[in-house]
């Protein structure tokens, strides 16, 4: 398969304080160069006998393919990022304020990241993260560093070919000039497209019906804030033998002996139970508690979740 050239997205002569010579050289030599390299690598890969290719040849080609492909994609986004008046639209300003505290805070971080890459090489990317439904500013020291599953919607090229001809070593002036040329209307459209990308599919456990789960961070916050909540560790007995660990501030009760301790719980306060990882023991116990009239949920990452967020753990004496 051959990768096709894309037309330059911005009109070079309309950019302020970025010379046509710089933009043309960037498009023809660096973007075009990456695309030509990508096609040459692709052609070579297509003719390769994978069963008999030495590892170093394959690694070398696949590495160069990744670099050239990302360079191609990021340059296309870079040229599409410019051509505007640098004034954020109402919608983009709101989204940035939502994700960074304020538009100014976003700009300060993005700009500082660009300055910090001066004299080296890399990219500063504003990237939509479907997992969390938010934007982040992403650093990349070279073309192939990318946030997994992120959708970049604004790209600042910090390779020195992007500015040296016009600005010499003055990377700061280049970053400021880039920001004055950002096409925010187009960025808003790219944001809207990116925001339609669904996050990773959540874990579904239809066998447990509609029993509700709660995250470990939320439980920790409720406990720390002194909110009424009854948290019970219901891992199987074998998990909590002497010498094994248990979350600080939590009591263990045997899930096999529910009837013996159900009377300790109050129906007027929510109950959270959990097992080792958030699968059947916790879910089933929560179901039984609900059936008995308790406001019960299971904690969805179990005891492992406590350890994963760094909650204090003590050893069972």
């Amino acid at each position, binding site marked *: 398969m051959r990768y096709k050239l894309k037309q330059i997205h911005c009109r070079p002569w309309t950019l302020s304080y970025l010379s046509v010579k710089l933009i043309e050289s960037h498009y*023809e030599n*660096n973007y075009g*160069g990456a695309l030509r390299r990508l096609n040459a690598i692709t052609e070579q890969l297509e003719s390769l006998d994978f069963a008999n290719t030495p590892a170093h040849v394959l690694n070398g080609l696949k590495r160069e393919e990744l670099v050239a492909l990302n360079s191609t994609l990021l340059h296309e986004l870079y040229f599409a990022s410019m051509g505007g008046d640098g004034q954020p639209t109402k919608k983009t300003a709101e989204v940035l304020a939502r994700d960074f505290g304020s538009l100014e805070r976003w700009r300060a971080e993005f700009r500082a990241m660009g300055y910090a890459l001066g*004299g080296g090489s890399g990219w500063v990317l504003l990237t939509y993260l479907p997992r969390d439904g938010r934007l982040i500013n992403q650093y990349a020291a070279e073309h192939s560093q990318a946030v997994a599953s992120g959708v970049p919607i604004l790209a600042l090229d910090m*390779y*020195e070919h992007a500015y040296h*001809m016009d600005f*010499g*070593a003055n990377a700061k002036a280049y970053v400021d000039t880039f920001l004055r040329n950002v096409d925010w209307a187009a960025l808003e459209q790219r944001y809207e497209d990116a925001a339609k990308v669904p996050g990773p599919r959540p874990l579904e456990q239809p066998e447990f019906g509609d029993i509700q789960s709660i995250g470990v961070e939320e439980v920790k916050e409720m406990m720390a804030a002194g909110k009424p909540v009854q948290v019970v560790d219901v891992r199987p007995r074998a998990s909590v033998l002497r010498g094994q660990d248990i979350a600080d501030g939590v009591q263990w009760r045997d899930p096999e002996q529910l009837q013996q301790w159900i009377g300790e719980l109050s129906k007027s306060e929510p109950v959270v139970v959990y097992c080792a990882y958030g699968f059947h023991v916790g879910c089933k116990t929560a179901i039984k508690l609900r059936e008995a009239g308790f406001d019960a949920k299971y904690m969805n990452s179990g005891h492992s979740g406590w350890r994963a967020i760094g909650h204090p753990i003590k050893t069972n004496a």
Partner: protein
Amino acid sequence: MNGLSERLLVSHYVNNYGGALRRLNAIRSRLASIDWTQAPTYEVNGLKREELIASASVILHEVYFDSLGGYGDNPPTGKEEPPEELAHALERDFGSYQGWRAEFVAMAKALGGGSGWVILAWSERLGRLVNHWAADHAHNLPASVPVLAIDMYEHAYHLDFGAKAAAYVDQVMLNLNWQRIGARYRLAIGAVAAEDPLFLPYGAPPEKDARISAEELKAALAHAPDRRPMLLDICQPRDLPRRTDMLPGAQMHAPGALPRWIKDLPRDRPIAVYCICGFQVSGKAVTELRRQGFDARAVEGGITAWHAIGGATVPMDLSTYEDLPHKTG
């Protein structure tokens, strides 16, 4: 230098080499104040990573600048070839000098449009010279000693060559100072000591106490006024158009007028003499001043090194300068 502009080289030295050095010093002072038992791992990793990159950038830039330039006051150097010992080593390890050159040049050109270094290094472990690839400052063949390094970061060529990386590489190959590269090879294999006069910048005085580094000068200028060195800015009339600033408090003089200005120099305190880059202009003046009994020292790297360490300057003041052809009443 032949086909590499002064603007490019000075920007490279002051901004990129000097920038790396300033960053390295800032990182070191951060590291000096860190509480190692309490610091979060990501802070330790982040700082040590940046320290590695900045240190490697400093060292490689020094090798790069040291590899350039002919043997003399700006003659073209395209005809020079490796001295005998290094030429033999290249033949031994790469088949021929031309074989080595073809690989080295191709590797450099392959890095065009990206960033990195191509390094000719001596590896004690492998017992040979190798051409090694580096996509950033910190890629390195462990325990090898760089003998020649070509900077393929785009700051090394974009001002002069734009995206034409291949033309830059060819131009660098014409500007190699093979005497120095050969000397570094002998140093790497343990045949000479680093104090060898071959490692002195061209024209600099050979005695250690006839020179002062930019950092030492900065420290000395912080002394009480009576112990502070006097600052002498020596500049050829033809180089004045290249100058815009000077060290605060310096007196600017023409080297040709030395018999006139030497009479006003103090004998009770050191005199720091600088020119643009610390080669023969300050070197000759210091040699003459020392012959006449003054405690004169040449500032290593001149005002360019002063810029690179972030030293303060003021606009150039020509009021003490002699023989200004264009000086008008």
